[in-house]
């Protein structure tokens, strides 16, 4: 019997295992109908202790497109957690019903606790500000599909680089590939944490930190946008002064390479002007599509279905 595997952190999978996962996602993209019965008779439980429409629907669609069924709950109030049931007990019960579980929880480490007691594969679908591995897998697959590989490019990460878990996780995941150069674009209040830049220095990975997006736009192969939230600033004056630096519009896009791609974990608020949406370089909705393919590939991989 194969060892039970979970997905808690993108680094749980080796680079080679991720390559296999992305190859499978590519096969799914090319022949979606060919995978429509792979999970016949299988059940995915989506245990969402906090609302997250996009991620939950992506998981559910992924399973339905594989021919499987879905059970679950969309917030803690409609689960036994409202009665005080522990995560450990919930997963033991879910293990009796379903074949695989995707769990989102506001408490950091909850999916790991679930995985330690589970008899079915558990996927971390986001645990507080800690990890959101399937978002990172989505980002990696999007880059790989658009660029052709996960090597030798310059990626700019822009906006809130201090609190954004998707950004930290993506940097960690990309640090395993060759020839990647990072440019961090943020106000000084929202700079990428020291432990990330320390890790990059230790691995001799080049990076640069700048305040203005325009300065570096022509160098980028990818621009990963995140939202700069007003509440992250100490005062409104600074926010008003800085916010326009981090709003992507046609003027800034005129400085970019013809083949640069814009990514965003979504939801977008105003950091990417809607006037960019029709630009062929805007890849953030395509990214959602890749999110579903990678979740389909992950479900198949964790269930051991060829």
């Amino acid at each position: 019997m194969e060892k039970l595997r979970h997905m808690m952190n993108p680094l749980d999978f080796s680079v080679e295992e991720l390559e296999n996962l992305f190859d499978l996602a590519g096969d799914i993209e090319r022949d979606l109908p060919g995978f429509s019965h792979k999970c016949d008779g299988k059940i995915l439980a989506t245990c969402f202790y906090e609302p997250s429409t996009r991620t939950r629907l992506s998981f559910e669609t992924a399973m339905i497109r594989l021919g499987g069924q879905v059970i679950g709950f969309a917030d803690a109030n409609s689960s036994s957690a409202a009665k005080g049931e522990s995560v450990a007990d919930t997963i033991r019960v879910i293990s009796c019903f379903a074949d695989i579980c995707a769990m989102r929880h506001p408490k950091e480490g909850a999916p790991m606790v679930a995985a330690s007691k589970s008899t079915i594969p558990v996927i971390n679908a986001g645990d507080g500000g800690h990890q959101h591995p399937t978002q990172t897998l989505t980002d990696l697959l999007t880059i790989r599909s658009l660029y052709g590989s996960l090597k030798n490019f310059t990626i700019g990460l822009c906006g809130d680089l201090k609190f954004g878990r998707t950004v930290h996780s993506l940097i960690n995941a990309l640090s395993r590939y060759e020839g990647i150069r990072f440019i961090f674009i943020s106000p000084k209040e929202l700079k990428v944490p020291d432990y990330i830049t320390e890790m990059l220095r230790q691995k001799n990975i080049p990076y640069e930190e700048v305040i203005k997006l325009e300065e570096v736009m022509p160098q980028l192969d990818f621009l990963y946008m995140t939202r700069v939230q007003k509440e992250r600033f100490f005062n409104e004056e600074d926010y008003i002064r800085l916010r326009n630096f981090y709003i992507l519009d046609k003027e800034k896009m005129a400085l970019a390479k013809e083949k640069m791609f814009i990514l965003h974990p979504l939801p977008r608020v105003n950091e990417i002007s809607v006037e960019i949406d029709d630009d062929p370089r805007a890849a953030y909705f395509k990214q959602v599509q890749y999110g579903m393919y990678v979740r389909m590939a992950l479900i198949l991989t964790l269930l051991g279905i060829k």
Partner: protein
Amino acid sequence: MLNIGKIEEGFVLDHIQAGKSMQIYRHLGLDKLDSTVAIIKNAKSKAMGKKDILKVECDINSLDLDVLAFVDHNITVNVIKDGEIIEKRSLVLPKQITGVIKCHNPRCISSIEQELPQIFYLADEEREIYRCKYCDEKYSEGDANNL
């Protein structure tokens, strides 16, 4: 100068950073032992200026060296038999510690999940950084209380 006699069987923890002996006393559960324990605080030390020393008359095997190494791996452990030092044990930072310190991240699952063991792993050996197994929060001596 205060004099404390030799012990016949047991161990001596020497070179404890001054002021840390009571913390070690608690971590090792020495309060639960029915043995003779001497706690010497602020003893003169050439190398350290001042230091604490613990002398315990009980079997060394009842001691959790991992916990001791976590608290201070520079401590010297002298094993005593028939009044003489028969062995000096060096301490190595444990890869993982369970039930010694508590995660103080309010967003960590360990803050609500019943009977979940508090587990920390050694994330950076050089800088002696431990992180919570569940949420990866860094353990900081200043803001964490002992269990």
